C-alpha cells in the first residue's frame, strides 16, 4: 500500500474529443473497501472518466495510477490484469454466446488446451446462484431478458476484478428486487476490501450504498465528499451548480376533468405477446404505465404504435375505427413513440442532430415533399433550444452526444411532428436530475397543451407525479387501472405485487 492509500487514482486527467474537452484535469481516487458514487449531469464526463481509468481510452494529459504506481493501461483487458473490472454503460455482452461463456470469456478454464466446458458451466451456475439466478448456463444469452443480461455482466465484472469494480449505470434496467440483490453483492464485495465505483442518476441508491461521492460537471471535478457530510440537496446543487425543485416535490395531480376521448382500444392485443386490453385515452391526459421488468409494458406500447401489429381487438381514433398495422399508420394519425432502447431503436448514430430531429416529420411528409436544409435547420434549432440539447453543432453526428442529450433529440423528433398522442417508454432512464426534471416538466406542459400521453416508467415517484391515471401491467396483462387517490406508490406496489406468480428473474 502507498501513502495516498488509493488503489486506483486519476491525477489531472485530460481527455479531449475534437475541440470538446470531456475531462479537464480531473483528480479521482479510490480507497479499498469503499463504494464511491460518481455523479454528474448527462455529458458531465462520467463514462469518459471510467473509460480512461480502465484503458478503453488513453488520456490526453495527466496519469492513471494503480496503487500509486503510474501505469499505462492499453485496453480493458490490460486493466483487468490489475484487478480492475468494469460494467460499461450499455450492456456489453455477447447475445450469441452462452451465459457461461459470457461470464468467463477470455478466462475460460482449460484442460489440455481445450475449454473445459463442463467445469465452466458448473462454476457459472454457482456464481449466478449468488445473484439469485437459476438458469441453464449453457443457454444463449440473447434468449434472456435485459435484466438477466445486466446481472450476468455485473457477475462477470465481479469475477474478474480483484481490487476494483466499476459499474456505469448498472441499475438503469433493474427493478427494485434486482437492485437490492445487486446491493447485497456490492456490500459483500466491499466487506472483502474491494473498491467499487458506482455511477447512477438515482440519488436514493447513492445514499443507500455509497460511502463517498464525487461530482463532475462539464468535465471538471467539482468535489469529492464523504456521504455522511452531505444531504441530497447538497449533491443536487453540486451537480447543477444551482438549486432546483426536485420532480418528486410536484404536487399530486388532482382528478382533472378529462378532455374528449382521443383513443379507444377495445380488446386490443397480440397473441403470444400481450393479453387483450381495454384502454380509453382522453386529450390532455397522461396515462402512466407501471409494472415489473418484463411485465409487457414495452410490448403494449409497441402494439399501440403498430410496431408489432395487434391481431385482435380494435382501436378508434377520435371515434373513427381504424387499423394501425405499422408505425407509418400510427404516425399519420398523430402518434409518436420514444422507444426504450435508445441506441438500437432510437438514434441514427452517423446522422446529424438536425437530421435526427427532422426525420419523423419528414417521414410524415413523405418521400416527395422534402424539407430543404434551411427548414431543417430552423426546425432542429427550435426544438433543440426548447429541449436544451447540448451539442457543439446541429450538424455533428448524434452518436457523439451523451445519453441524456440523445434522449432529448428523440423527444424533439416527435414534438416536431406536432403529435396528438405520445408514447414514451422509459423517457428518463439514464438521465440526470436536471434533464429528468426538464422531461417531467415537458410531459406536464404537453398534457396541458392537450396532448394525450402514455408514459412507461419504472420510477414510481415519477409516474405518480404526472399521471392522470395509471395502468398496471403484470405478466403481459393489464391488471389494474388506478384513478384519483389510488395514484400513490403504495397502491401501485400493491397492484403489481398482488398474486405474484411466476415473475421472471
Amino acid at each position, binding site marked *: 500500500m502507498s501513502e495516498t492509500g488509493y488503489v486506483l487514482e486519476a491525477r489531472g486527467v485530460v481527455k479531449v474529443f475534437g475541440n470538446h474537452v470531456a475531462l479537464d484535469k480531473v483528480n479521482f481516487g479510490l480507497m479499498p473497501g469503499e463504494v464511491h458514487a460518481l455523479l454528474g449531469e448527462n455529458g458531465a464526463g462520467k463514462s469518459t472518466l471510467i473509460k480512461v481509468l480502465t484503458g*478503453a481510452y488513453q488520456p490526453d494529459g495527466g496519469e492513471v495510477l494503480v496503487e500509486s504506481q503510474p501505469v499505462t493501461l492499453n*485496453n*480493458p*483487458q490490460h486493466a*483487468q490484469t490489475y484487478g480492475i473490472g*468494469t460494467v*460499461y454503460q450499455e450492456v*456489453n*455482452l*455477447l*447475445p*450469441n*454466446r*452462452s451465459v457461461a*461463456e*459470457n461470464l468467463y*470469456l*477470455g478466462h*475460460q478454464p*482449460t484442460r489440455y*488446451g*481445450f*475449454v473445459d*466446458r463442463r467445469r465452466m458451466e458448473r462454476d457459472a451456475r454457482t456464481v449466478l446462484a449468488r445473484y439469485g439466478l437459476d438458469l441453464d448456463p*449453457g*443457454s*444463449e444469452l*440473447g*434468449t434472456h431478458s435485459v435484466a438477466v443480461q445486466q446481472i450476468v455482466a455485473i457477475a*462477470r465484472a465481479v469475477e*474478474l476484478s480483484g481490487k476494483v469494480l466499476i459499474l456505469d449505470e448498472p441499475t438503469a434496467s433493474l427493478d427494485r428486487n434486482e437492485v437490492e440483490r445487486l446491493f447485497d453483492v456490492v456490500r459483500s464485495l466491499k466487506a472483502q476490501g474491494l473498491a467499487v465505483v458506482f455511477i447512477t442518476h438515482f440519488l436514493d441508491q447513492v445514499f443507500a450504498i455509497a460511502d463517498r461521492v464525487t461530482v463532475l460537471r462539464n468535465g471538471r471535478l467539482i468535489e469529492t465528499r464523504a456521504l455522511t457530510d452531505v444531504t441530497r440537496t447538497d449533491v443536487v446543487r453540486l451537480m447543477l451548480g444551482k438549486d432546483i425543485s426536485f420532480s418528486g416535490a410536484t404536487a399530486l395531480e388532482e382528478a382533472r376533468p378529462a378532455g374528449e376521448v382521443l383513443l379507444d382500444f377495445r380488446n386490443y392485443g397480440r397473441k403470444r405477446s400481450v393479453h387483450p386490453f381495454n384502454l380509453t385515452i382522453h386529450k390532455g391526459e397522461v396515462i402512466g404505465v407501471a409494472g415489473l421488468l418484463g411485465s409487457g409494458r414495452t410490448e403494449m406500447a409497441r402494439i399501440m404504435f403498430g410496431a408489432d401489429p395487434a391481431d385482435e381487438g380494435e382501436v378508434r381514433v377520435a371515434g373513427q375505427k381504424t387499423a394501425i398495422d405499422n408505425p407509418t399508420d400510427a404516425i399519420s394519425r398523430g402518434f409518436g413513440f420514444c422507444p426504450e432502447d435508445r441506441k*438500437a431503436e432510437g438514434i441514427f448514430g452517423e446522422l446529424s442532430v438536425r437530421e435526427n430531429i427532422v426525420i419523423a416529420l419528414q417521414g410524415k411528409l413523405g418521400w416527395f415533399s422534402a424539407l430543404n436544409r434551411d427548414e431543417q435547420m430552423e426546425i432542429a434549432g427550435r426544438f433543440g433550444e426548447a429541449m436544451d440539447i447540448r451539442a457543439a453543432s446541429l450538424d455533428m453526428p448524434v452518436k457523439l452526444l451523451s445519453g441524456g442529450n440523445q434522449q432529448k433529440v428523440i423527444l424533439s423528433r416527435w414534438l416536431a411532428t406536432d403529435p396528438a398522442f405520445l408514447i414514451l417508454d422509459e423517457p428518463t432512464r439514464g438521465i440526470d436530475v436536471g434533464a429528468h426534471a426538464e422531461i417531467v416538466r415537458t410531459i406536464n406542459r404537453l398534457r396541458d397543451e392537450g396532448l394525450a400521453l402514455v408514459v412507461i416508467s419504472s420510477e414510481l415517484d415519477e409516474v405518480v407525479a404526472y399521471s392522470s391515471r395509471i395502468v398496471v401491467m403484470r405478466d403481459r396483462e393489464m391488471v389494474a387501472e388506478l384513478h384519483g387517490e389510488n395514484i400513490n406508490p403504495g397502491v401501485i406496489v400493491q397492484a403489481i405485487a398482488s398474486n405474484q406468480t411466476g415473475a421472471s428473474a
Partner: protein
Amino acid sequence: MSRSLRPLLATAVIFAIAYGLSVMQFPGMFSTRVLGNFLTDNAFLGITAVGMTFVILSGGIDLSVGAVIGFTGVLVAVLISWMGLHPLVAFAIALIVAAVFGGLMGLAIHALEVPSFIVTLAGMFLARGGASVITQDSVPINHPFYDWISDLLIRLPGGGRLSFIGLLMIAVFVVGALVAHRTRFGSYVYALGGNTVSASLMGVPVARTTVAVYMLSSVLAALAGIVFSLYTSAGYPLAAVGVELDAISAVVIGGTLLAGGYGFVLGTFIGVMLLGLVQTYIIFDGTLSSWWTKIVIGVLLFLFIVLQRLIFAASAPGEKVAEKA
C-alpha cells in the same frame, strides 16, 4: 444453442434426402468410388471453406482465397520445378508467405477500419496478379515426393479410393471444429462475430484475433493450394477462379449466419458435400447443360437461406441479434 443447431440439422436432412433421391435415380451414385470422389474432388474446396467458416463466424468475409490457391500453386510449382527445392520446403515457404499475406489483410482490416470485403478484394487482385507475374503458364511438377503422395491412398472395395488429400480435408475439418468450438481462440472468433465493441470491452484481443482469423484463412487457402497442386501436379495462375464464391456458398448452406456469430464447422462440411452432390448429379445425368448447374446451385442457396430465415424467425428473441451492425 439449439436455435443455431436447427439449420445444421436441416442441411444434414436435406443432404440425406437429396442423396437418397439421386441414388434412386442413378444407383451408381451409391458406390465407394463416388463417395471417395466426394472427398478427393472437394478436398481443396473443403479446406478453404474451413478457413472461410472462421472468417464468416467472426463477421467478415474473405474474397482472396481463390487467388491465394492459385498463387500458392504457382509458388510451389516454381520453387520445386525451377528452383529444385524439396516439396516440403516449398510447402513451408508457401504457408509462411500465406500467413504473412493473411496477417497483413487482417491488420489492414483492423487498423484501417476498412470492411473485410474491400481489403480481401484488393488481396484477391494482388494474389492473382502476383501469380500471373511469376508465370503465365501452367508449371508442371514432377517430383518423386508428389508421386509418393498420389500413391498414398486406401483402396476401398468397389473401386473407391480414400486419397491422402481427402483424408487431409477430414483432418482439417476435425481440427477446425475443435478449434472453433473448444478453444478460447474459437470463442473469441464467435465473440467478434457477435459484437466487436462488446468483445473488445470484455477483453477479447480484437486486433490479435482479427489478424489470426485472416491468417488462418489464408494459411488454409494455401494448404488448399498445395492440395490443388497435388491434385493436378501443377501450378497454374488461373486455378481456382471463383472458389471464394463456392466456399461462401458452402458455408452459408452449412447453416452459418453470414452476419457472423452463429454456425458450425461441421455444417460447412455438409455444405461442401451438397455442392459436390449437385455437380455429380448433373454429371451423371449428362444431358443437362452447364447452366443448369448454376441455376440449381442458385435455387439451392435460395432454399437454404429461406429455410434458415424461417428457423431463426420462428424463435423471435434473436431478432435483435440480426439487427446488430
